[in-house]
């Protein structure tokens, strides 16, 4: 169970990074496409991604008794 903590953090970080990056990308796309290359959609998107990642992370840490669905390859 102690390892779970570490695993959670790993997931958390990975997830946050992914989301931030995704958000950044989407923001860039939107900024380029719709908002005339302004910076605000980029920061908005990255912030959105960061926030989502943060919330997910928090949710993950807060619900320790929920069985987390692992992908089968993790188990093996």
């Amino acid at each position, binding site marked *: *169970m*102690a390892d779970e*903590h570490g695993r959670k953090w790993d997931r958390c970080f990975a997830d946050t990074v992914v989301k931030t990056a995704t958000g950044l990308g989407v923001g860039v796309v939107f900024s380029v496409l719709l908002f005339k290359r302004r910076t605000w959609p980029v920061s908005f998107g990255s912030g959105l991604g960061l926030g989502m990642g943060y919330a997910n992370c928090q949710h993950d840490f807060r619900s320790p008794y929920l069985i987390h669905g692992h992908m089968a390859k993790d188990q093996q």
Partner: protein
Amino acid sequence: MLRACLRGANATARTNLRGTRPNNLQQCRHYTAGESSGGAAKVVVAGLLTVGGGVGGTIIYAKWDHKFRAAVEKNVPYSDRLLGLAWGPLPQDGRPSVQKQVEVAQPPSMMEKQMKASKSKSEKKAKETTESPAAESAPVPPVQSLEEECTECHHHDDSAAPVAESPVTEPLKERPVEEVSARLAKQDQEEQDVIAAVSVSLEESLASSAKSTLQAIGAQEAALQAVIRHTLKLKEAMEAEAPPQEKSAQWKDLETSLAERNSAVNDAAAALTKANVALDSLKSVIDESKGLKVSAVRPVVLAAEENLHNMVVDLDKAVTKVQTAESEAKIVSQYSELVNEAKLQFQKEVSSLTPEIQANWKSLTGKLSPDDLNALIAHAHRRIDQLNRELAEQRVREQIHIDAALEQQKLEDQKALEKAVSTSLQHVKEEARLEQERKLTELREVMEAEMRTQLRRQAAAHTDHVQDVLKVQEAELRSEADQVLGSKLLEQETRYRQLSQEQLDNFTLDMNSAYARLKGMEEAIDSHVIAEEEARKAHQLWLSVEALSYTLKTADTNAPSVPLEVAAQAVRDNCSDNDFALALSSAFPQESLQRGVYSEASLRARFNSLRSLARRVALIDESHNSLYQYFLSYLQAALLFENKHEAPPTQLSSEDLDPFKLLSYASYCLEHGDLELAAKLVNQLRGEARRVVEDWLTEARLTLETRQVINLLSAYANAVGLGTTQAP
């Protein structure tokens, strides 16, 4: 101190202001510093003043209002010390102290009152007690307190009271019959003696008095006779005309008779006195015997009295007779004297007339001359005239004389009457008294007879009663004796039975003991066999338990031991008949049987790695579990330093439940090999830290359980082994 500093600061500020200022800027600075310092000082001073005022007001108000003081002491930490210094400790019962003083003052006064009351009571009692013995012992105080008219009565009473008390205080016991009868006999004897003596004395005195009375009466009679004779003779001598010789003889006779009479009268008087004396003595004897209070004497006394009375009566009669005779004789003698006087007178006249005629005129019958005769006739005529004159005078005086004589006679008669009346009255009285006495004696006799009959009746009743009582007593005593006899017999019987029973019991006891010994010996032999069997089994068990404990040691640093199944089975086989060991061997947790347990060393190592993780998540629990809390928790773990190892106290207090402390206690315990205590301490972790170390805790529990069971089994096997081996 602050104020001093402030004052110092103000002072320095002022000196700085007043002192040399090398620089304007510095001045300004100093000014500003002074001003600012002045402003600051003002503020500080104001603040301090308010604070001081608040504190002082609180203290003063606390003195006045105790509830406020209590509230302040409760809420402000060290105020109780301060207020105690200022006003003394908070009095719990401030108000009742005054009342207590009042009460304390009151009881002494009440006690004083009580003491006074008790004193007066004791005084009264003392007085009463003093009075009562005083009344008993000495008559002085009650006499003084009472009126003095009855002092004599009191004296009598007091003198009588102690006298009456002494016979009362003596125990009254019934005098024995012999004593009573002896007493009665003595009393009778005494009575008899007294009666005899009295009767003798009475008789004597009676006899003497009778003799003297008779004598007196005789003498009186003689005197009477003499007197009568004398009077007769005198009368004869007066009246009779006899020849001169006879006359002289008569006169001589008369004289002799007179002499006789005188002598007789004297004799009579003497005899009378003697008789009176005798009678007086008799009377005194009678009175004495009356005073003896012996009732049987009374008739004798009565008879004596009667005799006395008769004698007295007779004596009086004789005396009266003699007196009457004497009075007659007196008359006659007076008459004779008168006659003699007349005769002498006549003779004197005749002799004066005829001086030559000296002889008695009766002898002058033929010798007288005519002159003499004429003279005599003339004298006779003269005498006749004289006598006629005298007669006439006498007739005139006759009445007076008669009256006087009558009066005299009356007086004498009265005297005589009175005397006679008195004597007769006395006689009648005496007779009445004697009659009364006679009646009294009769009545007394009747009463005595009646009393005797009543006493006889009472005696009869008493004997009947005594007989009844005796019968009853006899019955009672008989029943008592029977009871005693029955009880004694019962006792003897029970004792006999007891003895025989004892004998029987002893015999059975001996038999039982012999049998028991035999049985014991048989059992000892059997138990020996059993014990050997047991010993073998115990040995086997011990061996299997040793094997089991050895399996524990097969755990190395990160792998569990081999599964304990085989060894546990071996143990179960070896102790198939022992419930305790069976229960224990089936108490192994499944994990340990299937998978084996970790060793302590591996747990220790794991713990050290877990410790850091637990430290990191120390602040996280169900309510505080946001990422910010995670950040804070990580920060705390980075910044907080605690002892790596710290000895845990014997009792955990609430501040020891801090996770860092717990972890340091637990690591200390682990270092010292106390897995159990470490597990207990780790068990106190809460929240996320708890979740983190949950795995480790279950592993530790498993290890502990298994070790406990194995320890128990080995202890049991050792005990059994010890029990079965016999000391030589």
